[in-house]
């Protein structure tokens, strides 16, 4: 059984990262590897789609914290989209809505990068 995995899709110079499953201290390295690989390929504009993310602990939230500055220093960002209520509540509890742009749907998040409002 796979607890957690990611997949990515390119839309122009924006990369959409899809998270699936349970993101905890055991699986956080999977997301770290995904972000590291994108940085290596100079992909700094990320939309992270959390539609299929069932669970997140602080270890998972830490991965976002570890990469956000890197993306912004390179004129990119990590924008979050489509998270379920349970996952949003955890983000909210830690004040993440102040640090990250959160969108209801993926298209709006991608458009924010590309300027197609």
């Amino acid at each position, binding site marked *: 059984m796979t*607890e957690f995995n990611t997949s990515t899709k390119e839309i122009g110079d924006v990369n959409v990262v899809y998270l699936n499953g349970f993101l*905890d201290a*055991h699986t956080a390295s999977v997301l770290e590897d995904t972000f590291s690989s994108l940085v290596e390929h100079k992909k700094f504009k990320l939309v992270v789609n959390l539609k299929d993310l069932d669970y997140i*602990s*602080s*270890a998972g939230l*830490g991965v976002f*914290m570890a990469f956000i500055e890197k993306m912004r220093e390179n004129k990119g960002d990590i924008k979050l989209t489509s998270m379920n209520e349970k996952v949003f509540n955890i983000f909210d509890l*830690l*004040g993440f809505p102040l640090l990250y742009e959160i969108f209801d749907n993926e298209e709006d998040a991608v458009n924010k990068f590309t300027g197609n409002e």
Partner: protein
Amino acid sequence: MNMNLDNSKNRLIVKSSTANLITIRKFINNKAKTYGFSSSETEDIVLAVDEACTNIIKHSYHSKPNFDIEITVSFSDNNFNIKIIDYGETFEPASIKELNLELYRKQRRVGGLGVYLMKTLMDDVTYSFVKNKYNQVLLIKKLIH
């Protein structure tokens, strides 16, 4: 699997691998529901226990996977008590009282978020230890109906 349920079924002993967090979450999830907590409350309790055990693995056992974590649950006076014991190094997270997320962002540090979550999601979180013997964290959630 590194798991052992004793006869009373109110205790779970697992090895200190992050691979066992999923086992711990399932155990707590079942117990919380049995005791009558709502889905939302159950999720909060499960996350708090995950955070406590993650801290034990990282800070008490320094990510070494072959040491015991003992979780014992009980229910009395509408209190769900979760006692977690480890035999690693004592760490004292008591100094983390308030969350300063801006500081975390600037320093790119994330330690402490888990303790903040535990204290926010549970009614009481108490750390204690007997030096060179064991460490204990007791998490309490009140059942209100």
